[in-house]
């Protein structure tokens, strides 16, 4: 590019300021969207890569294969004693366990207790997780049973500015114990599945009756292998190991029921658990694709506007040719221009990304930052790539204008028919993607709204949940006392106890129920231990039969004599699963083999868990005294926040050694929806901007087309065409690509949205309404754009139009 080329670029841009702004602005927005979403994808796919030698560390997954069980699939936990047995059978194996983690215990101070993320780990923890230390030594500290390692933040929280090393903390996991701080490690980064601020040595004996029970899952087990080949060969030795060790608990061919698999820890974050769909992977992939496509739309914009502009510069090109510029020089000039423009856009995009990042972080629950050291070189590469891709077509097109005929006179250049067709094709692609994005946004928003408003089988407002009741440090006497006190608190109308609650308690049980007269183990059903008041709180009314009733002493499962059938209440879904035609049919019947269950009532299905999980057939048993791992659900009238505060105060007085944990059901359920809400918001932002870029592109193109046709419009007007005729003509021509774009968008959006919705058990129907609405919107945008443009052109005095060339 020589000085004159730059000068003519500058003139051409300043003469068409608006187009220059649209051209560069659209691309800048596209680059910003791409950048931010690329950062998001990088974050989501980069978990654990901060850890030194992370590629050598594997998580042991437990994989269930039980016919019909709601618990089938792989889980990131194992039996507590697994590593002990592995070490015995495979000497030299390097591995560690993590017990607990998020809210894994509490720190006792000054008569109160604070929940803390506490993990108990094997002494060789640092041979697997080489956490960066601030002070003290990690690899030796945990050998002593009374040593603790704490994070930077925990050190500041508990010891302020004084040196924490050597100081003591009283920490309760199973029971309170005094620990001496032996070291401080750096706070864990955002991109990790590890979650602890205090590390304690795993005790020699853990109060867990299932520690060596095959099939139980209570902790995480991690192994380190020097090479991937070592890991593979170890994995091959696992099935015989499981068969040998698990025989006692699982019977013959144990590995066919419970298998163990190795997962590289970098993959753990996106790996679905159990029956979950791969929603995280889909979300990351979807948003990555949105970023790429938005960039594509922006590039198409650029190419379109640049080629349109090319027509206006045909005379310049022709004169250059006459003056001796060869085709190569012209191609270089236009490519140079494109790279220059894209560079400006990239800079703009970077600024937009930086400005928009706080918003995106808030919308997506993220804390992304722009790593300039990496982004700037990447952006330079992107600039060259996009510049060349976007500049190639206009460059080739412009440089191929035959100079003679352009200069000859009245023959108007403009890329000819091929150029027009190419532009129309690009508009179709661009608008097709934009329409697909609109449909996607509609469906996503509809689904997230549906999830928030769907009937769960109970009223979600005016419901409080107290989960700290299940803490092992709460004595049964305290539990009874605090529950009794809650019942008398003003505003609380009912208190229900169970080991399950709205939003999920974390306790999940399922068992096979053999059916009388049928071979095999029978279907697998979830079961829930309900205590007093549970159905009152959830407003559950029987569809058939009755609910648990203290007047029937036989309802209480704890007092049942051996061999006597246990009374159960089943959900509507369980009716068919257990082989009954109607709810009324089921009542009074006894199912189950050696553990007989008599159905006394049928209740509606209650959805406690994620809308992504199937709402499995379930039966309830009654534990009048206290269910195991009990949580309390409270029905309240009045301001739930205020009542929650008074429950908290009550708890802190009556159970001071255990931190209070409780929330409203709305908040608790909100957590189940959070990930999808955030993904939807990110999608909507990305898609919205993509649509905006598409509209800007359409606007720019419409205006260029109109300008290019000013002469034609003038001619038509001298022939007597009215303004209305002209507008109709232009709209008709623009509507065609928009309609074709719909044909492209519909199948694309249909397949994508069906895949997305398949990840939900409770989902909206993929109604044609979303498609129609997006199409209507797209047509409206196109029509408005063209009307705006062509009215201006058609109002112009024909005399001016004829002069204009």
């Amino acid at each position, binding site marked *: 590019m020589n000085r004159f080329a730059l000068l003519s670029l500058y003139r051409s841009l300043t003469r068409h300021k608006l187009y220059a702004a649209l051209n560069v602005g659209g691309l800048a927005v596209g680059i910003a969207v791409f950048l931010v979403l690329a950062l998001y994808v990088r974050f989501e796919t980069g978990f654990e890569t901060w850890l030194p030698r992370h590629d050598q560390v594997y998580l042991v997954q437990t994989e269930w294969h039980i016919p019909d069980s709601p618990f089938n699939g792989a889980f990131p936990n194992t039996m507590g004693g697994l590593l002990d047995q592995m070490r015995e059978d495979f000497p030299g194996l390097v591995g560690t366990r993590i017990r607990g983690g998020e809210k894994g215990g509490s720190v006792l101070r000054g008569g109160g207790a604070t929940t803390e993320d506490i993990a108990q780990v094997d002494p060789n923890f640092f041979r697997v997780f080489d956490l960066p230390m601030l002070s003290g030594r990690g690899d030796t500290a945990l050998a002593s049973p009374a040593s603790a390692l704490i994070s930077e933040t925990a050190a500041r929280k508990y010891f302020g500015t004084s040196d924490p090393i050597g100081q003591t903390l009283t920490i309760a996991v199973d029971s309170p114990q005094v620990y001496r701080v032996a070291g401080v490690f750096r706070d864990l980064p955002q991109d990790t599945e590890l979650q602890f601020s205090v590390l304690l040595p795993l005790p020699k004996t853990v109060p867990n009756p299932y520690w060596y029970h095959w099939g139980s899952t209570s902790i995480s087990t991690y192994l380190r292998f020097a090479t991937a080949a070592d890991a593979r060969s170890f994995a091959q030795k696992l099935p015989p190991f499981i068969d040998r060790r698990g025989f006692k608990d699982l019977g013959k061919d144990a590995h066919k029921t419970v298998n163990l698999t190795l997962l590289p820890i970098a993959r753990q974050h996106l790996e679905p658990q159990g029956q979950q769909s791969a929603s995280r992977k889909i979300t990351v992939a979807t948003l990555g694709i949105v970023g790429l496509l938005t960039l594509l739309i922006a590039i198409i914009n650029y190419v379109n506007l640049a080629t349109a502009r090319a027509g206006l510069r045909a005379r310049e090109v022709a004169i250059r040719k006459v003056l001796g510029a060869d085709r190569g020089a012209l191609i270089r000039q236009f490519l140079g221009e494109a790279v220059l423009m894209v560079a400006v856009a990239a800079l703009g995009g970077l600024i937009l990304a930086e400005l928009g990042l706080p918003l995106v972080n808030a919308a997506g629950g993220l804390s992304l930052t722009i790593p300039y050291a990496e982004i700037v070189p990447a952006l330079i590469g992107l600039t060259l790539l996009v510049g060349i891709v976007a500049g190639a077509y206009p460059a080739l097109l412009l440089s191929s204008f035959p100079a003679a005929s352009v200069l000859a006179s009245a*023959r108007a250049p403009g890329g000819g028919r091929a150029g027009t067709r190419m532009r129309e094709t690009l508009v179709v692609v661009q608008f097709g993607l934009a329409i697909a994005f609109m449909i996607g946004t509609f469906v996503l928003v509809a689904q997230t709204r549906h999830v928030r408003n769907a009937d769960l089988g109970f009223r979600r407002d005016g419901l409080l949940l107290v989960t700290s009741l299940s803490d092992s440090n709460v004595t049964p006497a305290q539990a009874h006392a605090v529950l009794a006190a809650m019942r008398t608190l003003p505003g609380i109308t009912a208190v229900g106890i169970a080991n399950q609650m709205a939003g999920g308690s974390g306790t999940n049980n399922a068992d096979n129920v053999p059916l009388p007269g049928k071979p095999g183990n029978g279907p697998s059903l979830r079961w829930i231990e309900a205590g007093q008041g549970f159905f009152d709180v959830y407003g559950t009314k029987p569809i058939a039969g009755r609910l648990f009733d203290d007047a029937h002493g036989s309802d209480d499962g704890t007092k049942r004599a051996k061999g006597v059938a246990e009374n159960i209440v089943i959900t509507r879904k369980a009716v068919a699963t257990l082989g009954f035609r109607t709810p009324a049919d089921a009542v009074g019947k006894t199912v189950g083999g050696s553990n007989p269950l008599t159905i006394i009532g049928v209740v509606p299905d209650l959805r406690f868990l994620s809308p992504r999980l199937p709402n499995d057939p379930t039966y309830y048993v009654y534990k009048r005294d206290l269910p195991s791992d009990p949580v309390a659900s409270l029905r309240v009238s009045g301001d739930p926040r205020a009542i929650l505060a008074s429950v908290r105060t009550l708890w802190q007085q009556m159970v001071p050694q255990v931190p209070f944990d409780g929330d409203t059901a709305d908040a608790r359920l909100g957590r189940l929806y959070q990930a999808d809400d955030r993904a939807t918001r990110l999608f909507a932002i990305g898609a919205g901007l993509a649509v905006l870029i598409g509209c800007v592109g359409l606007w720019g193109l419409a205006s260029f087309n109109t300008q290019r046709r000013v002469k034609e419009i003038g001619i038509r007007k001298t022939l007597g065409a009215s303004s209305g005729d002209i507008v109709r003509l232009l709209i008709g021509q623009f509507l065609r690509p928009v309609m074709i774009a719909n044909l492209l968008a519909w199948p694309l959006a249909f397949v994508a949205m069906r895949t997305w919705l398949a990840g939900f058990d409770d989902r909206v129907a993929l109604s044609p309404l979303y498609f129609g609405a997006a199409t209507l919107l797209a047509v409206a945008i196109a029509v408005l754009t063209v009307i705006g443009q062509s009215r201006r052109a058609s109002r112009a005095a024909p005399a001016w139009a004829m002069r204009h060339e």
Partner: protein
Amino acid sequence: MIRLDSVQRRYVSEEVETTALYDVDLAVETGEFVAIMGPSGCGKSTLLNILGTVDRPTGGRYRFGEQELAALAEPALARFRAETLGFVFQSFNLIDELTVEENVALGLAYRGSRAQARRARVAEAMDRVGIAHRSRHYPHQLSGGQQQRAAIARAIVGDPKLILADEPTGNLDTENGAQVMNILAGLNEGGATIVMVTHSPSHADMAKRRIDMLDGRVIASALRAI
């Protein structure tokens, strides 16, 4: 047929004010063939554009027959142009994306005649200017003379009461120019009223009346001695 009373046209832009026409009075009767001459920039095209209602005077009155055109709204003017006028330009102004035939048919597009009748009239118009054998060509496939004949066919296809021609021979060589002039003269013979701008004295001599302009004013009007 046409009566201009002190028609004025002034262009006002941000920096400069140009007056293209000062108080022009002009009458053209049915069947006349008027040639307008004058140096470049004296306002010939402006006058023609006002006659053609594609430009509006900033002052004065323009009556066409019994109609006061200055009072008409844009849609009515569009209808007026479609039914009454035919334009021929120096730079032909054919639409590049349309064939000769389609360009000519465009001259009827805004008059709402039936497709059958339209076909016949288009063919007839092309015949009259001798361009029928190029009917499926695009403008860029034609010589300048052929393009101008196509443009004339488009102007006359609707049987306009008035043909306005702005330097119709300006872009043509002598031979083609003469051809175009012969066509125009023939049309006038057949009864068409023509107002034509030209720089060529010999072409102006083919008209029945000559008007000379200078700096936005009509300075002379003379009938040709026969």
